């Protein structure tokens, strides 16, 4: 596997640290009741999104899941807009209507989070179909967990994309647990790449903790998709260091396993390699963390200052034109 140049490594490192510190700040904000509802954090899986998304063109589309803060930030959605959305405020990237699980950004073709497991797969296939029919050369990257592979929608979408040679990059973030169900308790065949090859599309397993390995595999997969020969599939084997959401007792896995996986922390894997190659000083990582923390703190202030939407516009965005009259709702929002 070829190694990346120092500048690229530094950018990947900063990106991963940025996502890590953003997610941890969200955990704290959740404890302070600033962020509500469900919150699913990407801590531990940063290498997957960082490695793939850096290779996407601005005009490529991305469809994510409910664990999509990192994907949104890396695709270019402004930090302020993501944080304001978590606070449910007007300046959020979904106007405060989506929240953590439904981040959207038309300008960056970020077609959202999706709280239905496997729900985004047909949407991604459709976006790719539109591009193909309109003769546009661009890719739709679709991220989903290994849990989605048990949904009928995965089979139907993979088959349809392969059947019609659609430009979709399927990225399976295999973090070994579908909430509380381990992979081997859910799938008859746990070698997911092997299983997907049955649809007649190229499929590779990848070490999802090594950002350089992810980058290498993603380059090959994207080249295949852009060639027009149809979709490709990456099984990115990774691990989440925190609970499925805020919070679960994590009874489904033992602590030793978590501790062992933390020794493969994607950030330290890259940082140690850079230090060994003389590309990173002993305090550089701390400096990056502080710089990132300051940017994140500004986004918290921005979010806190952003106003809440008035209830009188409650009925907006259900239809494109005027909202349909709703008698009882108006009493509330009048």
């Amino acid at each position, binding site marked *: 596997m070829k190694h990346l140049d120092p500048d690229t490594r530094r950018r990947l490192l900063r990106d991963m640290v940025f996502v890590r510190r953003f997610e941890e700040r969200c955990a704290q904000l959740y404890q302070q009741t600033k962020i509500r509802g469900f919150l699913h954090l990407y801590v531990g899986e940063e290498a997957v999104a960082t490695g793939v998304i850096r290779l996407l063109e601005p005009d490529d589309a991305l469809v994510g899941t409910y664990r999509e803060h990192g994907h949104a930030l890396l695709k270019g959605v402004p930090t302020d807009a993501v944080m304001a959305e978590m606070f449910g405020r007007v300046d959020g990237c*979904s106007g405060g209507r989506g929240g953590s699980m439904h981040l959207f950004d038309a300008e960056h073709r970020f077609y*959202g989070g999706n709280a239905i497991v496997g729900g985004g797969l047909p949407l991604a296939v459709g976006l790719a*179909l539109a591009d193909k029919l309109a003769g546009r050369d661009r890719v739709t990257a679709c991220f989903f967990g290994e849990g989605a592979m048990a949904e009928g929608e995965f089979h139907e979408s993979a088959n349809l994309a392969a059947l019609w040679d659609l430009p979709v990059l399927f990225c399976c973030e295999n973090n070994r647990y579908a909430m509380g169900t381990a992979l081997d308790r859910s799938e008859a065949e746990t070698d997911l790449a092997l299983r997907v090859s049955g649809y007649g599309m190229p499929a590779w397993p990848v070490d999802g903790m090594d950002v350089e390995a992810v980058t290498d595999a993603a380059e090959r997969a994207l080249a295949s998709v852009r060639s027009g020969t149809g979709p490709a599939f990456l099984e990115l084997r990774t691990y989440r260091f925190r609970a499925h959401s805020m919070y679960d007792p994590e009874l489904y896995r033992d602590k030793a396993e978590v501790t062992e996986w933390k020794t493969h922390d994607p950030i330290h894997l890259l940082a140690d390699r850079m230090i060994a190659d003389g590309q990173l000083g002993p305090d550089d990582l701390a400096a990056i963390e502080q710089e990132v923390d300051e940017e994140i703190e500004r986004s918290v202030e921005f979010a806190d200052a952003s106003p809440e939407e008035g209830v009188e516009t409650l009925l907006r965005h259900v239809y494109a034109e005027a909202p349909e009259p709703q008698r009882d709702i108006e009493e509330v929002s009048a």
Partner: protein
Amino acid sequence: MNTTQVEPLLMTGREAMRAAMTEAMRADDRVFLMGEDVGRYGGCFAVSMGMLEEFGPERIRDTPLSESAFVGAGIGAAAGGMRPIVEIMTVNFSLLALDQIMNTAASLRHMSGGQFGVPLVIRTTTGGGRQLAAQHSHSLDGWYAHIPGIKIVAPGTIDDFRWMLGPALADPDPVIIFENGALYGASGEVSPTDPGIPLERAIVRRAGTDISLVTFGGTLPTCLDAAATLAERGIEAEVVDLRSLRPLDDATIMDSVARTHRAIVVDEGWRSVGLSGEISARIMEQAFYELDAPVGRVCTAEVPLPYAHQLEQAALPSVERIVDAAMAAMDGTALAVAS
């Protein structure tokens, strides 16, 4: 093409819808048709017969039996700038795509704070009466009319089969067209040019003074027959064709009830927790002081539709049951008629 005819054309329901799709695809190359057997087979109900030959496999796309995927793909293509027409063979199979319709098509605009819309048209066949038994005879219009974010229409006349597709395709939000299978073979007059009636407008198909029969789609002809029978008994029934089930055209309904002071809602769906209940509630809320009798409802009996002909006909709304309900409402002794 010869000069535009003046007098109306005579067409069947399938011919009218086929003409509408053909016209739309010739006019706008963003429009394409996708669904099971819509291409080579010519459409399960032969609605898209011959279109593959004119537009080719790229724009008349046969799909695998994957309702969730191809309806989801239709949603994605619409969000991606196309104007797809997705045909779900029958409403019975639409249940497999309900997640995509509810959680993506209907919600995307709202969840994204207005950034993404889904200008998609879904066509599907509905209704019983053709001895297809329980799994192929459902009428689920009410389910879909419950969902904010999509629009639901039900053509009851051949003219609407011809002219509803245009405005539906032009609508920036998802529109589902429920086509009652019985009307595919029925023929009727079609105006040669677009009458330009807004999608959400209800129309009084027969004026009357004594009672309003509020209905849509496949039961419209049944109500017109019932009105004729009632006329022989000196009762002038007004027949209101809803055309749109979401949004409902409350104004036209209430105007009619204000004239007749009695109403029967006729819906091929089941009675409990159904569309007929919603319409009855709205009449109660908005025209309470006009009522001289409780709003009656004539719906399909609450049974999975049986295969045997006589059982199926007994279950479905019929002219006799509509006339009985109307008579009960007329003579003031209307109790809660459990027809």
